[in-house]
């Protein structure tokens, strides 16, 4: 039992981890052919994952409605949207889903009139929340907060034509902030995250990290 639950998964992780790592660095046609073969399988598995994803989503909302969990009414809207879009997409104006989507079909009207509009509206709400959050949180409480405040004002003015009209230095200063301090901070974060990913991958490959096996080990 221990072999099935622990030893075999650890050996598989070691073998496939080293294999996946190794073929990236082997300059042999066999390695590139294998990569191509694996990538095709990954795409097939990716396609099947969509079915699993749809099943998971439906299951989640069915459970929510059956148990009358808080907010279960929203799940009805999920089913309305899901069935409407999936139904019209599959029906495809009587040409069915195995043919190309008919331009101007009901599905496209729904996509343009509902999905695009609501999607764009949802994202535009971000502008309102950013404005409100900026008003409530940008305070010159300390030296660092004051620096952040000044940088924000310079970038906000430098990124719009009005800033250019005030002074040509504003866009230049905004560009410098983005290219120098911003890049330095982003690089530090990226390098830190990348080193963390490498360390975690090595721990998984060599069996030191076992939380993915479950059991709280």
């Amino acid at each position, binding site marked *: 039992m221990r072999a099935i639950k622990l030893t075999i998964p650890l050996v598989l992780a070691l073998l496939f981890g080293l294999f996946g790592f190794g073929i990236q660095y082997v300059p042999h046609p066999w390695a590139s052919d294998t990569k191509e073969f694996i990538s095709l399988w990954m795409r097939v598995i*990716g396609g099947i994952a969509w079915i699993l994803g749809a099943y998971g989503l439906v299951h989640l909302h069915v459970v929510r409605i059956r148990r009358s969990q808080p907010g279960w009414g929203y799940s009805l809207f999920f089913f309305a949207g899901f069935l409407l879009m999936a139904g019209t997409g599959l029906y495809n104006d009587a040409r069915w889903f195995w043919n190309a*989507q008919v331009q101007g079909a009901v599905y496209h009207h729904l996509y343009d009139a509902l999905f*695009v509009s609501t999607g764009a509206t949802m994202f535009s709400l971000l502008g309102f929340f950013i404005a*409100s959050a900026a008003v409530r949180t940008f*305070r010159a409480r300390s030296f660092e907060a004051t620096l952040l*405040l000044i940088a924000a004002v310079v970038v906000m003015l430098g*990124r719009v034509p*009005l800033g250019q009209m005030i002074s040509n230095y504003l866009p230049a200063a905004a560009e410098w902030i983005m290219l120098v301090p911003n890049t330095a901070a*982003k690089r530090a974060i990226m390098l830190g995250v990348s080193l963390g990913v490498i360390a975690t991958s090595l721990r998984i490959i060599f069996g030191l990290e076992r939380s993915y096996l479950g059991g709280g080990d």
Partner: protein
Amino acid sequence: MMRVRWSDPRLVFLLVAAAIAAALLHPVKQPIKPERAVVQVYDFVQRLPAGSAMLLAVDFDPQAKAELVPITKALLRHCLRRNLRVIGMTFWPQGAALGQSIFSVVAHEPESADKKLGTDYVYLGYKPGDMAQVITNMGENLGQTFRQDYENRPTATMPIFQDVASLKDVDYLVDLAAGGTPDAWVLFGADKYKIPMAVGCTAVIGPDMYVRLNAGQINGLIAGLRGAADYEVLLNRPDLGVGGMFAQSIIHVMIIVLVAAGNLAFFWIARRRGGSTPAHE
């Protein structure tokens, strides 16, 4: 009677909505001087010989419509004006139809009347799978990866693919991104196959892209509605980007004024309390 604080989110929302509506209804023309990062993309496209192949990865969904549709339209117009061959695709399933709509609208504009689908441009749509894997497949064989375009026309017979067999034959790659797709395009596409690359993106992810720009992994950046406006100015064809610039200017100034007012109130309260700063004013 309900007392409304000046920093009440509802009041801020109302002010923002009123300012945007007023600015869009009564726009004031402002001089727009394109940013260097945008000019770099424009100049590169200008220098490409006619007939060069360009890949536009339309990696966004309707949520990013306000920023990325103007950028995509401006770029596509420029490519078609320069007689480049444009291949479009996406890694975002929700945006596949939006990409098709942009290609269709721009290709049917009077200035693109002589452009033929399958010869001068094609939109391949969405391809499922891990990005690294799909890009690797595209690097091996573009026609095999996309056997049909978005409307199920076979790509094998399309003239555009006669000498663009794989990603290696693409002369310029631009990822129009609302998420993390530029990283994969840089790592598995541009760097690996030595393709010059640029990024058009939402303003939110713009700061992330400056790292790539600074490192030379991308040769230009068109970020946010401002980027779209800059490109439209360079193209001398104002559209949604330029049209939204006054509203954006007004909102930025409004936020700065409100932040300044908040700080004045913060210090005024602190002074009244004898120097102790309030947790929330």
